[in-house]
């Protein structure tokens, strides 16, 4: 029975000199990591973990910047049988106090035995551990891992198929309380069917700028290539966002064939890349670009294709998928022989009857793009509030069942129990419909905003806004508004204060913008401070997000 460790060792025995990861860093030559080097360096980490008393099944949290050490440290954890979990590192805009609070939440629920980090972060980490009386947690610093001592026998080889291989967290303090625990078996099952969907071969070359702490980057662009003998070229998301042309240059340089991207990146690249940065760039090798992790938009595909077709981009390269960390990564994938199916549905039937009826009689319609069909081993149902099945074209919640489902939310039996219907059907929290076997995603049941591919919890933003002086306690609301130009949602925060003075409201709005930006994963522009009694609450006293969104659109956003 294979485990991550046995597969890595096998690749190393069969093709030790094959390059599996190429690391790109601005201002430095590209660095190739072969299987032999990966195993050797990961073994050093594994030995260091073992010497410090890390045991099989312990959780190891990795807080590391983009680079080689992250890759060695991650695979070192695998080799010693530990459960790695990546956490985003502190960026320059984020407040260290908030980051520390997030870390505390993460420690609380994942109970790590150790944390691996980079030298500059060591102090903040140790202070946090001390404050939380968690001095028992071992700290590993990348510049202090002895180069000798990688053993031949790895505890990771003794892991059973059903043992947990890794944890994935989504961002934000709410997301950190919920680690998705995936077994070796679930991940191998997923890679078997997903590799088939995308027709993965060892000749493929994956190009990625995605962070490894999200499923799209971690599974599709890190674990899949290494476990399946495919090369991946990795650049940092921080460098990509400042120089998006680099991904296209890398596709050209390495004859890249596969990429995964969130929808907004199509608009972003089309608007911000200049031809002078694409001299001699050819995108002819690019066979599949999978848009996933935020709602897919036909408009964004068109904008991107029109902008880059003269560089060899093909229309059929642009594909779609729908997935979630709980199913390892993908749940559906478009058939590569076709371009994603697009249809217009009647707006009124959709809103009032929750039925996706094909548009008729020139009435107002909504354009929907398919996310393809369920991957092999994953089944879909669409259910109503009571969990009963709905017919084709009816909009309800997707429930899925698969051979690659999460084992649990780590240490959270309460959340795990709530996530499932009977007989192993997982409730995704996403709304949509099925037609002709194709999956169309329409929205979310859970109040999660997806901003540029990042999951953001409105309740986190609301409580942050309440922390700003002058804001009426408990009277803030956050929601997303779709921005057509950016191809993603934009966050709106409305906060009440006890004054109708516009000048004072503007000052508080600015304070909220700064405070929320420094204390969350996103940057907030649209903040509206209003006078008393603007915000609508439900009869039970909860903030009614959708009602407040409607009110905001009617009062402030019309004509934007």
């Amino acid at each position: 029975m294979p485990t991550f460790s046995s597969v890595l060792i096998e690749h190393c025995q069969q093709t030790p000199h094959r390059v599996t990861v190429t690391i790109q860093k601005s201002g430095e030559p590209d660095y190739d990591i072969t299987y032999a080097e990966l195993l050797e360096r990961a073994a050093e980490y594994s030995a260091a973990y073992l010497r410090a008393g890390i045991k099989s099944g312990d959780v190891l949290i990795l807080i590391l910047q983009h680079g080689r050490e992250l890759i060695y440290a991650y695979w070192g954890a695998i080799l010693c049988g530990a459960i790695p979990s990546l956490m985003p590192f502190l960026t320059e805009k984020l407040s260290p106090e908030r980051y520390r609070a997030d870390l505390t939440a993460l420690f609380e629920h994942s109970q790590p035995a150790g944390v691996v980090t980079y030298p500059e972060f060591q102090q903040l980490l140790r202070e946090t551990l001390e404050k939380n009386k968690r001095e028992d947690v071992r700290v590993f610093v990348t510049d202090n891992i002895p180069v000798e001592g990688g053993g031949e026998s790895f505890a990771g080889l003794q892991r059973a198929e059903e043992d947990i291989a890794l944890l994935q967290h989504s961002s934000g303090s709410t997301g950190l309380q919920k680690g998705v625990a995936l077994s070796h078996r679930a991940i191998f099952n997923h890679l078997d069917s997903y590799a088939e969907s995308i027709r993965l071969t060892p000749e493929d070359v994956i190009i990625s700028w995605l962070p490894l702490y999200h499923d799209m980057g971690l599974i599709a662009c890190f674990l899949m290539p290494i476990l399946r003998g495919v090369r991946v070229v990795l650049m940092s998301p921080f460098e990509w966002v400042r120089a998006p042309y680099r991904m296209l240059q890398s596709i050209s340089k390495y004859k890249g064939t596969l990429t995964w991207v969130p929808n907004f990146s199509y608009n972003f690249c089309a608007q911000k890349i200049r031809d002078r940065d694409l001299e001699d760039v050819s995108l002819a090798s690019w066979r599949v670009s999978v848009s996933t992790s935020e709602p897919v938009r036909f408009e964004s595909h068109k904008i991107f294709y029109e902008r880059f077709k003269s560089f060899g981009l093909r229309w059929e390269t642009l594909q779609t998928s729908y997935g979630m960390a709980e199913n390892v990564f993908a749940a559906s994938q478009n058939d590569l022989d076709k371009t994603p199916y697009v249809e217009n549905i009647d707006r009124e039937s959709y809103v009032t009857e929750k039925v996706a009826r094909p548009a008729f009689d020139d009435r107002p319609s909504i354009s929907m793009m398919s996310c393809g069909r369920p991957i092999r081993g994953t089944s879909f149902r669409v259910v109503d509030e009571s969990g009963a099945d709905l017919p084709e074209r009816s909009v309800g919640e997707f429930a899925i069942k698969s051979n690659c489902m999460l084992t649990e939310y780590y240490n959270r039996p309460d959340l795990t129990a709530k996530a499932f219907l009977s007989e192993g059907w997982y409730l995704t929290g996403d709304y949509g419909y099925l037609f002709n076997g194709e999956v169309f995603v329409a929205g979310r049941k859970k109040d999660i905003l997806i901003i540029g591919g990042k999951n953001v919890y409105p309740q986190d933003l609301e409580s942050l806004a309440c922390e700003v002086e002058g804001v009426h306690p408990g009277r803030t609301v956050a929601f997303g508004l779709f921005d057509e130009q950016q191809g993603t949602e934009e966050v709106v925060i409305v906060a009440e204060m006890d004054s109708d003075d516009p000048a004072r409201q503007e000052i508080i709005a600015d304070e909220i913008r700064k405070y929320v930006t420094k204390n969350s994963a996103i940057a907030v522009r649209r903040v509206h401070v209003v006078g008393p009694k603007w915000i609508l609450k439900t009869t039970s006293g909860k903030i009614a997000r959708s009602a407040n969104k409607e009110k905001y659109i009617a009062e402030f956003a019309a004509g934007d």
Partner: protein
Amino acid sequence: MTIELINQKLAEFIVTKILAQPKRILRTDEALITGGVIDSFSLIDLALFVEDNFGVRIADSELNSSTFDSLDQLSALIVSRQAK
């Protein structure tokens, strides 16, 4: 072009195009990057604006707070490069 004029043009671009709050007053010593005023997704817009309007190129590896964080620092950088 004087530092004051450069600051004024930069500020106008930032408040209207990046922040979409035309009435917002930016202090010239305000921390734009570490203060969370400019989002990482907008840094490239600022670099392209500088290039188009002042004929100075800021490399993508320089788009961080160690190169500039405030309007004053950015305009000083522009002037020093224009002089070369």
